[in-house]
């Protein structure tokens, strides 16, 4: 016992303290929600349980099941076709299939109303070619499933494409030699091998569905996230919003457990990565099969990218004279500045958490890494409520104990918003950076220590230069996420700060949906450029290997 205590004292260092402090500071919102659960339910809780709770639950479950099925179908079929067949425009289509991710789902939702509503562009086209259709009623839960699926399927597409493409040629050839048809190879070899990756992609889709506020609100569908907003803003009952948030967290935990159970212990390490499929191994297609393949990849691109983009461009040509002004440029500037500052802070926090916890010798403190990076599976609305609740406690504490009024920090600056972004998106940078730092190998760092270099010198001279591409790539991805984020921004942005995402939402919420097109297109344009840069960096990294 004494020995153990001596060892803990021996192994405790300043990095142990920093690791715990950072982890605790980042996780304050979620800890606050847990603590406030013991305060009992709010005044409106009974009313919510009687009239809304069942609807929130039903709608959320239907949305999850519907988008789960549709995104799996769209994502895996297109990934299979792209990884196994050669056909004209394949490379361009492979890239285009990622692009629906550049359009936030609430913007796709607005565009579909413009396309299919009364006097909508697509309805007009259909009428011109002889259909006597007036409108398609799209603002219901099925419309929302459609919108979310065509907007989020790239998560499944990306993960299954990576897995299908990494299956070595020898495995397919073995299957062929053993007499299996292409269909049987897909069913009994490729799909089972890719299933853990597909499930990981599906988990991201589910998290986005639960996080969605803009599309559900616009279509009038009551979900947990819209319910949290309604309870807090309209019913003015923050405590009941905390309870709804806790229920939503339970739902996330159940989904995570179900998916983990479904995946089981399957994690296939496919050997022979140098023997992966090359373009010459893909099957050349002609005739009817070619047409079928084009339909498979064409449908998601048409409904997830081209139609919404076409509608947005059409609206932009109608409204740009009104909406393109200095104010919009200022909003764009604010958006980019907030996203940039957040990105830098997230990178610094991730690096601190990775290396401080590595330099600390108490393994039990690694728990703080997990707590700090839990934000990505917690919908933005919950984090917003957690931040507001903890903010109130801080304001009261500082006022009571130090007679200091710090309310302005919370209500008229972006500090709190940026802090909440850091919690929400820390995992986007942390996990790839940690994985890459492990890939670099601890021998490299240890070799540096043994050459008389300290931890800081090793970090700056050896570890960071080797992580440069991973830093840039994950930084850009988090920049994109922050630009797109809506619910958290709506809850926490100060009155004098505006972002492109919020501006587009506000136009649509004021029934001026056409005017939402220009800020939306500016957002999409920036995200597309950022995604192209990420793709370029990843390609360069692959060539270096």
């Amino acid at each position, binding site marked *: 016992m004494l*020995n153990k205590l*001596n*060892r803990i*004292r*021996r*192994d405790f260092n300043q990095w142990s303290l920093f690791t715990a402090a950072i982890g605790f500071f980042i996780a304050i919102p979620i800890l606050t929600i847990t603590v406030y659960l013991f305060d009992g339910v709010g005044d409106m809780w009974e009313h919510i349980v009687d009239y809304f709770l069942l609807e929130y639950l039903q709608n959320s479950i239907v949305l999850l099941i519907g988008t789960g099925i549709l995104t799996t179908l769209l994502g895996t079929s297109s990934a299979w076709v792209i990884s196994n067949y050669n056909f004209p425009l394949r490379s361009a289509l492979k890239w285009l299939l990622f692009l629906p991710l550049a359009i936030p789902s609430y913007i796709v939702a607005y565009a579909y109303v413009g396309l299919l509503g009364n006097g909508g562009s697509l309805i007009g086209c259909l009428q011109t070619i002889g259909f006597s259709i007036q409108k398609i009623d799209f603002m219901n839960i099925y419309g929302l499933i459609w919108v979310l699926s065509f907007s989020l399927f790239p998560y499944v597409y990306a993960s299954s494409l990576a897995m299908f493409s990494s299956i070595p040629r020898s495995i397919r050839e073995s299957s062929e030699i053993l007499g299996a048809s292409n269909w049987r190879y897909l069913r009994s070899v490729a799909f089972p091998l890719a299933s853990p990756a597909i499930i990981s992609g599906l988990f991201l889709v589910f998290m986005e569905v639960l996080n969605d506020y803009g599309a559900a609100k616009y279509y009038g569908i009551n979900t947990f996230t819209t319910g949290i907003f309604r309870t807090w803003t309209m019913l003015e009952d923050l405590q009941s919003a905390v309870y709804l948030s806790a229920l939503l967290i339970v739902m996330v935990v159940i989904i995570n457990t179900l998916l983990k159970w479904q995946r089981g212990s399957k994690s296939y390490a496919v050997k022979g990565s140098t023997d992966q499929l090359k373009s010459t191994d893909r099957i050349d297609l002609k005739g009817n099969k070619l047409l079928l393949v084009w339909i498979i990849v064409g449908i998601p691109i048409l409904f997830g990218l081209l139609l919404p983009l076409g509608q947005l461009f059409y609206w932009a040509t109608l409204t740009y004279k009104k909406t393109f002004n200095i104010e919009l440029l200022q909003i764009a500037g604010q958006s980019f500045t907030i996203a940039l500052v957040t990105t830098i802070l997230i990178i610094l926090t991730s690096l601190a958490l990775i290396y401080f916890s590595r330099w600390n*010798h108490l393994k039990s403190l690694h728990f703080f890494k997990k707590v700090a990076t839990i934000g990505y599976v917690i919908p933005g609305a919950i984090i917003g409520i957690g931040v507001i609740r903890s903010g109130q406690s801080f304001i009261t504490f500082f006022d009571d104990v130090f007679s200091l009024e710090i309310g302005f920090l919370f209500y008229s600056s972006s500090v709190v918003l940026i802090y909440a972004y850091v919690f929400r998106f820390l995992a986007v940078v942390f996990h790839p950076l940690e994985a890459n730092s492990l890939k670099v*190998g601890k*021998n*490299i760092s*240890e*070799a*540096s*220590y*043994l*050459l*008389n*270099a*300290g931890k800081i010198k090793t970090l700056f*001279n*050896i570890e960071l*230069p*080797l992580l440069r591409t991973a830093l840039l790539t994950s930084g850009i991805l988090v920049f994109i996420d922050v630009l797109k984020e809506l619910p958290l921004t709506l809850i926490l942005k100060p009155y004098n700060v505006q972002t492109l995402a919020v501006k587009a939402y506000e136009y649509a919420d004021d029934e001026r949906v056409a005017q939402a097109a220009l800020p939306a297109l500016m957002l999409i344009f920036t995200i597309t450029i950022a995604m192209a840069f990420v793709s370029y960096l990843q390609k360069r990294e692959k060539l270096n290997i």
Partner: protein
Amino acid sequence: MVVNSILEISELSKSYDGKVKVLSDFNFNMEHGKICAIVGESGSGKSTLLRLIAGLERPEGGEIKIAQSIVSDNTKIVQPQLRNIGFVFQDFALFPHLTVEQNIAYGIKNNKSKIIDKLLKLVKMEGYNKSYPSQLSGGQEQRVALARTLAIEPKLLLLDEPFSSLDVGLRSILRKEIKGIVKKLNTSLIFITHDISDAIDIADEIIFLKNGKIVQHSPISELSKSSENEDISNIMSELKANMEGVLNLFQKPDESNVFKE
């Protein structure tokens, strides 16, 4: 206590996740200027022992002294960079973004270019100053890793399976060169090997490890007596079987034919 000892280890123990015991009550002393080979089965604790000496792992108990100073016990751990130990990893761990010259210069404080030239000459790598590790062969990488380690003038040199990735001809040459360098620089060396001929060729003493304990520690000249020890015979036959298994793959293709009558 050994007079003029470079390394003294007493009651050293280490386990992973508090469960798997890798080393227990390990005791070992070594004189300055000696070369010691460590031989043992996979998982016997060879690499962990080297990492504990270097300060890359933290022991649960016991004491390590290097040149008569305590570097690790229950109350303190001296950081690896303050132990003045040279370590060549199995994969050499050269910094891939630095040139040969920059790799060697990394640990040097003064007179960098003079020392680099001297070391490159010592390891027979003159003219490779501006090459990157990715442009070198396995043997060349190993020479650079050795030069980089020698640049800090270590009191004790630790090599983790230094010859395992080299072909037979090259390993024989490098063995001799390393022995020459260690004797010339009057330092001490501990190295891990799976090949008993490495030990015979350059070591002054040999340690047989099994399940985290020393089965035998003797001068290399007494190696022939060791075969009477059952544990050592087992270790030797396992190492031999591994080697033969590998050789069979290349030398006896006919025997691998399962359809052969």
